[in-house]
């Protein structure tokens, strides 16, 4: 019989763009981020294998595993699936306990989540329109020929914000290209597109009764230009966790631990998936 000290729990978050794995016991043991490819299953195996290696563990050392995110059903070795909304709330609460509202800006969607004691009380979501998601920034960055991770710094260096008239990503892409051709400074344009994304997200999140503190997570939180633009729109400072990509996977790992311990306290045993890691390879 294992003691509690060497029980390990894992959370796997398969987002549209990135796959994240977090392993916890009493504290954080390992976290790995890898890009999501067309083959979710193999990738989940691969990222999990890497996380286990970081933690110097074997797959059989994991007591309970929860998958979350848009590709959560594609993780055969996970014991349970939980929506990313719940996992984000749980994960963020453990990192920033004062946060009452989460804005998660992902590669293909964005969400606003109101939380209380780590539990979801309300949420809004956009996964139907690319405007207001990471995808918008990705496409515009590409059109402007700026690396995605350089976009934020460039935008905070801008002397002015060029307003972007179009909401639609497709039209905004044409707009920035022609603005650039007309001599509009690149930095001002990037400031404009961050403001455009911020405006969309702000309008969506304002459908919730926002309570401070407000935290930003997801890939969008790593973009300083976007965070600043959001702060300007909201009129208050936002919290950003140290590793904003990992919130969902961390929440999943914490949920795994909590579920297991609650069951254990009642003398129950949780059902495992029984599937192990397959020979992991990114390519078929």
């Amino acid at each position, binding site marked *: 019989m294992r003691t509690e000290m060497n029980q390990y729990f894992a959370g796997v978050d398969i987002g549209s763009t990135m796959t994240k794995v977090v392993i916890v016991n009493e504290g954080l043991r390992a976290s790995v981020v890898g890009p999501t490819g*067309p083959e979710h299953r193999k990738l989940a195996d691969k990222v999990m294998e890497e996380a286990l290696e970081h933690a110097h563990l074997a797959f059989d050392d994991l007591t309970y595993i929860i998958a979350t995110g848009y590709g959560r059903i594609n993780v055969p070795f996970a014991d349970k699936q939980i929506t990313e909304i719940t996992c984000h709330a749980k994960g963020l609460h453990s990192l920033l306990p004062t946060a009452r509202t989460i804005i998660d800006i992902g590669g*293909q969607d964005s969400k606003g989540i109101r939380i209380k004691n780590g539990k979801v009380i309300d949420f809004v979501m956009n*996964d*139907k*329109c*690319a405007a207001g998601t990471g*995808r*918008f920034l990705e*496409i515009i960055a590409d059109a402007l020929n700026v690396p995605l991770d350089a976009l934020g710094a460039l935008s905070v260096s801008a002397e002015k914000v060029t307003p972007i008239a*179009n*909401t*639609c*990503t*497709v*039209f905004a892409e044409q707009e920035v290209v022609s603005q650039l051709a007309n001599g509009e400074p690149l930095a001002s344009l990037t400031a404009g597109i961050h403001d455009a994304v911020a405006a969309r997200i702000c309008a969506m999140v304002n459908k919730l009764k926002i309570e401070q503190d407000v935290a930003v997570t997801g890939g969008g939180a790593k973009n300083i230009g976007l965070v600043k633009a959001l702060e300007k729109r909201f009129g208050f400072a936002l919290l950003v966790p140290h590793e904003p990509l990992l919130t969902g996977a961390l929440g999943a790992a914490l949920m795994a631990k909590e579920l297991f311990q609650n069951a254990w306290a009642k003398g129950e045993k949780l059902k495992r998936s029984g599937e192990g890691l397959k020979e992991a390879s990114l390519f078929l």
Partner: protein
Amino acid sequence: MAYALGIDVGSGYSKAVICEDKAIRSYAIAPSGGNYQETARNVAEEVLKKINLTLEDICFTLATGYGAAMVPFANSTATDISCHAAGIHLVFPSVRTLIDIGAQFSKVIRLDDAGRTLSFLLNEKCAGGSGKFLQVIARILHMGIDEIGPRSLASSNPVQFTTGCAVFAESEAVSRIAEGACAEDILAGIHKAMASKIVNLVTRIGLVGACAVTGGGAKDVGLVKTIESELNIEVLTPHDPQITAALGAALLALRMVSLNGGDKESEKRI
């Protein structure tokens, strides 16, 4: 007899129509490109040349469309909404609901029995219901825009798209292709996603009387058929659906001439 020239400078194509009374004498279509002034001049020259006229023979030139302000030789401008209404009323007098599918916008116009606009709705914020969407899909499928319609009609199992967003649908299409979906089924799915955006506009404005589809989108038989099946009616499409607004502009130009007794606001030259 008095000739009037209507010019519609759209975001995708520019169209010119010369009318004499209520009859089309000549028309021309050219891609708008990056210089609307030059395009307007070229398409006007072409439409005049076809029937051996010069601008002097034209009693009134009315410009409309996205680039209406870029037609220096026009005597006046009018909104594309009123030009569409006037144009379709001449071609199909029974039409009370008009769906126009342009390169960037789609719109639905309600008109009265005299061809006047009663109300309209634009889908200008989203590429999802516009011709741009078709161009994006044609590009990833490596086919000409004209091939899209017939290929879509050959589909037996349309792909279900989860969103009507052109950006997300593009990546969804790429994933479905990777999974082995054929071009026909992708196209039929895209037509369905587009049609549902357009039908949503029609439902909001209310479907009344006969319905026509115009604009470049009306040349896509797959899209038109999908709109028909979503609306559960048959729609009318003009012989050349792209020139409807330019035709309307020419008709409105003639009306202005008869109202003002042929007095041109100003003499302008190409």
